[in-house]
């Protein structure tokens, strides 16, 4: 991808800007009591209607260069759809300005104006007109549209008899026939079957070659990662960050998963109740950690695990581990009794109970004797090859002299979310591997020979 090449920034600065968004704000008024009838107006002519203001966008600024694939990501309610609608000219902005250079086409929804009672032929013409083609242009492109959608055999079938996949194919085919220099796309990638999706992706690649500028609005970071050169992260109507996709992806996943972000969000929303307060205290100050739910715990109490945590490669406690980076699980143990040669261990498993990591100090040099009051910190460092998802850690302290004796064991004590921007292949762990394909020139000969 061009995005990854080193001279990308040089390339970008040589291209003209096609979209400039300057300090755009948009506010919605949500009336307390809907004054929807003239009667209410007539009875209370002087009462000013109270309303809540919803700041959907606050001073959003960014620009997009010609030929760029630009992603706009954000969680639900972050304002990304509002931003798209402002760009598309469906909403008027309250303040600020949006400048666009070039013919723009918007796919906020595929198949705008589709009517289930009409055959595909009519719907294509209607939809094309809605998207801005003239009748003549639409007729000229008709064959191309059906070719792309692979629906030649169903052209006279009423749309209500189409499967949803067919409908999407038809709609997307019409949409891409509109020769736009700038495309605004709102999460249309999530639909259609795999082979059609691949076609759409190929089409995106062609857009890129033609120099079409594309703005993709989505909450799916992996498609942003796959296509976009740059991205913008929206949070509560603010631009949280603009930059290269990798950084935005990391930031986005942090926002999504870390309770720190959740708490921050709740603080913003001014919904701080006591429970949230406790949570935030826990997050900001990792010790002493309270487990989310009291898990099963057993042991004779001669040693006590005080707290456990996950940390990133730099030793910072975290609740989100990023795929492919070094990280560690650590726990602090205090001895209440004289203990000789204890064994420390931890196992990591999914909530379904699949163990993905087990480590203990049994085979190591004996740890020696500990006096009451003494404390140790145990760390298990590993490269995070885990697939994205939630994992629980069950640490333990034990003695192995005569059979196994638990000093302290807590199952599913600490939880962590592994986040990855890349789609993984479906395995529990991404074991580093090489895949080699070696063509066997005499395979057929040997096959027939053996058969």
């Amino acid at each position: 991808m061009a995005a990854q090449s080193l001279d990308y920034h040089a390339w970008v600065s040589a291209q003209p800007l096609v979209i400039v968004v300057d300090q755009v704000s948009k506010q919605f008024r949500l009336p307390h009591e809907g004054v929807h009838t003239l009667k209410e107006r007539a009875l209370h002519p002087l009462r000013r209607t109270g309303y809540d203001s919803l700041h959907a966008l606050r001073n959003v600024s960014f620009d997009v260069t010609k030929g760029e694939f630009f992603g706009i990501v954000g969680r639900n309610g972050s304002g990304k759809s509002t931003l798209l609608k402002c760009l598309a000219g469906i909403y008027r902005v309250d303040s600020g300005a949006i400048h666009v250079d070039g013919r723009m086409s918007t796919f906020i929804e595929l198949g705008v104006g589709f009517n289930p009672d009409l055959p595909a032929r009519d719907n294509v013409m209607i939809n094309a007109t809605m998207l801005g083609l003239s009748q003549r242009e639409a007729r000229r492109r008709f064959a191309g549209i059906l070719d792309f959608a692979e629906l030649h055999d169903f052209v006279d079938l009423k749309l209500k008899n189409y499967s949803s996949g067919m409908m999407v194919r038809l709609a997307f085919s019409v949409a891409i026939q509109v020769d736009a220099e700038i495309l605004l796309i709102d999460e249309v990638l999530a639909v259609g079957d795999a082979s059609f999706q691949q076609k759409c992706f190929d089409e995106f690649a062609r857009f890129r070659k033609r120099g079409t500028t594309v703005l993709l609005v989505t909450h799916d970071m992996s498609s942003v990662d796959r296509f976009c050169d740059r991205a913008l992260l929206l949070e509560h109507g603010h631009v949280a960050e603009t930059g290269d996709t990798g950084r935005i992806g990391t930031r986005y996943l942090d926002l999504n998963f870390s309770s720190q972000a959740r708490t921050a969000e709740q603080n913003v929303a001014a919904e701080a109740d006591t429970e949230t307060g406790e949570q935030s205290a826990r997050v900001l100050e990792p010790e002493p950690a309270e487990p989310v739910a009291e898990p099963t715990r057993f042991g004779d109490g001669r040693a006590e695990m005080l707290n456990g945590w996950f940390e990133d490669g730099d030793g910072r406690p975290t609740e989100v581990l990023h795929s492919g980076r070094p990280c560690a699980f650590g726990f602090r143990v205090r001895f209440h009794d004289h203990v000789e040669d204890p064994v420390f261990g931890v196992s990591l498993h999914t909530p379904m109970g699949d163990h993905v990591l087990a480590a203990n100090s049994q085979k190591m040099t004996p740890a020696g004797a500990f006096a009451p009051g003494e404390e140790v910190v145990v760390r298990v460092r590993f490269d995070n090859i885990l697939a994205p998802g939630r994992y629980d850690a069950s640490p333990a302290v034990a003695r192995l002299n005569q059979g196994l004796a638990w000093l302290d064991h807590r199952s599913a004590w600490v939880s962590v979310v592994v986040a990855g921007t890349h789609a993984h292949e479906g395995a529990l762990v991404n074991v580093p591997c090489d895949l080699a394909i070696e063509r066997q020139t005499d395979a057929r000969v040997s096959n027939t020979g053996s058969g």
Partner: protein
Amino acid sequence: MSAALKTPAPGTRVRGPTALGDDWRRLVRLTWTLAATDFKLRFFGSALGYLWQLMRPLMLFGILYVVFTQLLDFAGSERFFGVSLLLGIVLFNFFGEATGGAVKSILVREQLVRKIDFPRLAVPLSTVLQALFNLGLNLIPVLVFLVASGGRPRLSWLLLPFLIVVLAIFGLALAMLLSSLYVRYRDIEPIWEVVLQALFYTTPILYTAEMIKVKAGEEALRLLLLLNPFATILQSSKHVFIDPSHQSPQSLVGNGALTLLPLAAILVLFVVGYTVFAREAPRIAENL
């Protein structure tokens, strides 16, 4: 990229939706497509199709005709009573479709309004256009009846299209006003139903202007014609199209200049309707 922001902003500014948009051809195309599609869909799946479009006013006409000629003898010696009744019904039908249909038109097109940027005026305009299609069809039986009852082509028939254009402008004025107000005030719908009912009975459709003159006096008739632009248009249509025995509003009012008053009222209403619509247009998508 912040350095790039300082360069002058390129291209055109996105100003959000407006009533007219910036490409009139797009407005025309969209209006046509919307109207044509709806027209096509209207009687989709019914065996008689477009025939129903003709049947509806004809059936109403049949009932009224029987009641008012056989039971109530409104016709008297009037030779063209039937045709003028039919013309009245057909024109009123158009007016009712154009305005009554426009009330909810934006809500009906919600999907479009919320999802694409297009000249918002296309919505009420297409409602009026669709009503015009129907009017065109419905005028055919009127013509057939007229010829059947002895009417012969006259030069004044050429004035009928002009009157229909004025009526369409009147309808569009109200369509713009009603459709944009309905976004904010949902009670426009029942109110307008009542207004249309009132209009039907205060217009010389079931009766003739001459009957008012005889029974309620010249002053009442004058008032009716001056206050009700639809009545003026209908009376003019009867005069130019059906038979000169239907007096023109000018001669009924007795003052040619005064009959320009309804025309002026229509133009004022058009300006008001457009102004209101244009003011509401940018925020229709979010107010819905």
